[in-house]
Structure formats: C-alpha cells, structure tokens
C-alpha cells in the first residue's frame, strides 16, 4: 500500500533533500545502534561464549527443539479445541431458543473479558478443589487457550454468519432443510470460508499466548530458552533474540497463509 497522496512527488530539489534527510536519519539510527552496541560491550554481551552455544547441535536437541515441540503441541491442541469451541458457541449464540442463546452469550462474553493468565491459574491451581485432582500444566494452558481463543473465534464465526445474505437461509428452508441442517450445511461452511483469514490471525495470537505456559511451569520454547539455555550459558539476551526470531518466522508464515487464503477467496468470488 502506498500513501503517495500525502505528499507531492518530489522534483529534482526534493529528491536531493530527501536523499540528505534519508542519510541523516540513517546516521541517527546507526547512532542509536552504536549506543546499544557500546552498552552490550560494557556488559560483555558480545562475548563469543554467549553466542556460540546457540549454534551447537546439543543446545538445539536439548533445549530449542523440545521447547518448540512443547509450544507447537500446546498451540495445535489449542487451535483444534478452540476451533470446536468457537463453532459450538457460535451456533449456540445464533440459536432461536433464548435458553441456549443467552447462556452461550454470557459464557463467550465472560471468557473474552478475563485475562488469559487468570484462566490458566484457575485451571492449574483450582483443579484440586473443583475436580479433586491436579491437572498438568499442559492441560491448564490448553484450557486457557481454548476457552479464551474459542470465545473470540465464536464471535468471528457469528459475525460471518450474520454477514451472509438472508436468501441463503431462506433458500435452504425452502428446499425443506431443518434448522440444524441449515446451520451445518449452508451457513457455517460459508461463514467459515469468509472468516478464515480472521480465524488464522487469531491462531497467531493463540500461538503467542502459549508462551504464558512458562508461568505455570509448562515446558515450552520461551521456558527452555530463558530458563534452560540462559541458565547454562548465562546468555539471556542472545537466547531471547533467537527465540523471538523463531516465533517471528512461524507467525509470519501463518500471516502469509492468512493473506493467501484471503486472495484465493476473493479470486473465487469473482
């Protein structure tokens, strides 16, 4: 996207001025980078023994790959369950029966309003009182991810169903479908297709939120990086940078997927 309408296309003088300004700003940014560099240097953060462990095969096999597996496991479980939760509650909120619609709405609004960390604490520390046994950190994290993101996805799907032309459900009723068939065979598939990019974006949020697992001791990537690698090599900053990079790569791929789905959908609609 270009915002060229905010300024004139520069003439010869403007081009020269922009070059000078651009160089000045690049220098200023380099200056900031230099200050950071010096600060790192003062604290010995550039020492090779802080960075080289990140390249060692055993560091990857003992910390990074198992951590990544933990993160992905929680995220995939969260995606599947949140998707189901979202479908069920979207359908429930669209129900014609008030006694289904109102409680479903209350549940969705409640879970969206409570911080995810409190939900995880509730499952993790409250399980003994509630179900008489302790749940694992994994279960607590997946519970939190499911009910929070599931509620958001329920709202996304509901918005998708409401955005469909009324003729869709009218036509479905006209050919003799039952209410559940109209929802299951006609409305939900179309709403899901229309809202898929938004749902995928929510999965990026879910993946990032899985890092909260570290607070209840779930063995995931941030935990293995900052409490595993950094504890062994006292290199918090290099480890944090590597782990951030891994998350950014995964999330950008998901982002790309959302864009691709969106393009494909608008190409199909034409």
């Amino acid at each position, binding site marked *: 996207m270009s915002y060229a*309408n905010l300024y004139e296309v520069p003439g010869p003088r403007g081009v020269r001025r922009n070059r000078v300004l651009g160089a000045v700003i690049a220098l200023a940014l380099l200056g900031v980078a230099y200050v950071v560099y010096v600060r790192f240097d003062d604290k010995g953060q550039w020492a090779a023994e802080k960075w080289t462990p990140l390249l060692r095969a055993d560091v990857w096999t003992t910390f990074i790959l198992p951590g990544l597996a933990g993160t992905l496991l929680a995220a995939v479980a969260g995606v599947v369950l949140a998707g189901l939760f979202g479908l069920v509650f979207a359908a429930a909120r669209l129900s014609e029966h008030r006694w289904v619609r109102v409680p479903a709405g209350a549940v969705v609004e409640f879970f969206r309003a409570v*911080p995810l960390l*409190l939900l995880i604490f509730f499952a993790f520390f409250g399980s003994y009182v*509630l179900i008489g046994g302790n749940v694992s950190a994994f279960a607590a994290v997946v519970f939190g991810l499911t009910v929070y993101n599931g509620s958001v996805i329920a709202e996304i799907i509901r918005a998708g169903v409401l955005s469909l032309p009324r003729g869709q459900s009218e036509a479905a009723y006209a050919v003799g479908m039952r209410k559940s068939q109209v929802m299951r065979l006609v409305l939900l598939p179309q709403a899901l297709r229309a809202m898929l990019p938004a749902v995928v974006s929510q999965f990026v949020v879910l993946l990032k939120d899985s890092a909260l697992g570290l607070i209840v001791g779930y063995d995931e990537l*941030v935990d293995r990086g900052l409490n595993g690698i950094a504890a062994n090599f006292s290199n918090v900053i290099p480890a944090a940078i590597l782990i951030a990079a891994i998350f*950014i790569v995964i999330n950008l791929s998901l982002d790309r997927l959302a864009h691709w789905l969106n393009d494909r959908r608008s190409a199909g609609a034409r």
Partner: protein
Amino acid sequence: MDALLTEWPTITLAFWMTVKLAAVSAIGSLVLGTALTAMRVAPLATLRGAAGTYVTVARNTPLTLVLLFTGLGVGANLGVELSADIATNNFWLATIGLTAYTSAFVCEALRSGINTVPVGQAEAARSLGLGFVKTLALITLPQAFRAVIAPLGSILIALTKNTTIALVVGVSEASVRMREMIETYGDQVLQIFFGFALGFVVLCLPTGLLFGWLSRRLAVAR
C-alpha cells in the same frame, strides 16, 4: 467470600497497580504508536523501513518474551536502572515492555484509519500548499484517529488484560495477588477466581462502552 472480604485492601492495592500499569503504558503506546504511524507513511524509505521492521518484530513476539527481555535482559543483564527502588524499577521496566508491544498494535490501527480518509482530503491539503508534515498532522491524522476510536478501545482493553503478564517482571499486580491468595486460601479458589475476574470485567466493561460511545459521537460524517 471471607478471603475476598478480609483481603479487600490488598486486592484493591493490586488492582490499583494494574490500573497504573495500563494507564502509563496506554499513554506511552499512543505516543509511540502515533510516531510509528507517521514514520510508516513518510516520504523517506529509511523511516518507513525502520518503523515497518519494528512493528513486524513487536507484533509477532509473545508478550511474555518481550517482558522477560525487558526484565531479565534490559534490567538485569544490561543493568539499566530507572529507579533505586526495586519495585519502582520493575514497574518502569514492565511499562517499557508493555508500551513497546502495544504501540505496534496502535500503529496498525492508525494506519488502517489513514486508509479510511478519502484521497481528496490530502489532495486538497496539498493544493493549499501544505507539506507532508502539515498534511499529516492537521488533515489526515485527526480524521484517522476519529475513525479508529473503537479499535483503540479494544487495544486498551487488551492492554489492561495484558498487564497481568507483568508478573514475570516482578510487579505485584492483580494476577500476583490472585496466585498468592489461592495459595493462602486454598479452599476458596472459586470465589477468588470469580472475584478477580469480576475486577477485570469492572475495569474493561466501562472502557468498552465509553469507547463505543465516543466512536459514534466523534465519527466523521461523510
């Protein structure tokens, strides 16, 4: 209910910390987010590139990692000290982390707001002889802000909920108090959870209503 009643003063204190974290980070994010937006639409490629990179990095990193980075990395390892008092120092470190993260979302919202402003507005400004800075500051950004008040409200609500993660920097806000109380009053987990959940509903519900009302009231009539 006993635990909630006897601990009422410490709970309100913890929520006061939540409110302070959210308020300070919200102001910081608004300022930084606006600056980033201006950079992203600037005529200079260096500015656009720098702001774009920043937003991509901040948006795709888990907040837990951002806050651990400010707490352990910037605070402990680089020795950045913002106050001699540990609690105050942790508060400011958490605020920096929350601001760094949230401003990326403010920037994305504002940028989509700029897209809603008709091209003719900026063209008219330019034909009056306004340059880039004046066009942006006087014509485009004010209208963009009014278009994205509801999304900014959602960001503020998300920020309020995200302050619970400041626990990893050692700020004693609501989530820390909730965990401590569950340990002390193990038999009242349900009441404690719903009490704290209600606290967040009380904080977020009026915010949502206020921003919804403001967005309708301040919407640009076209």
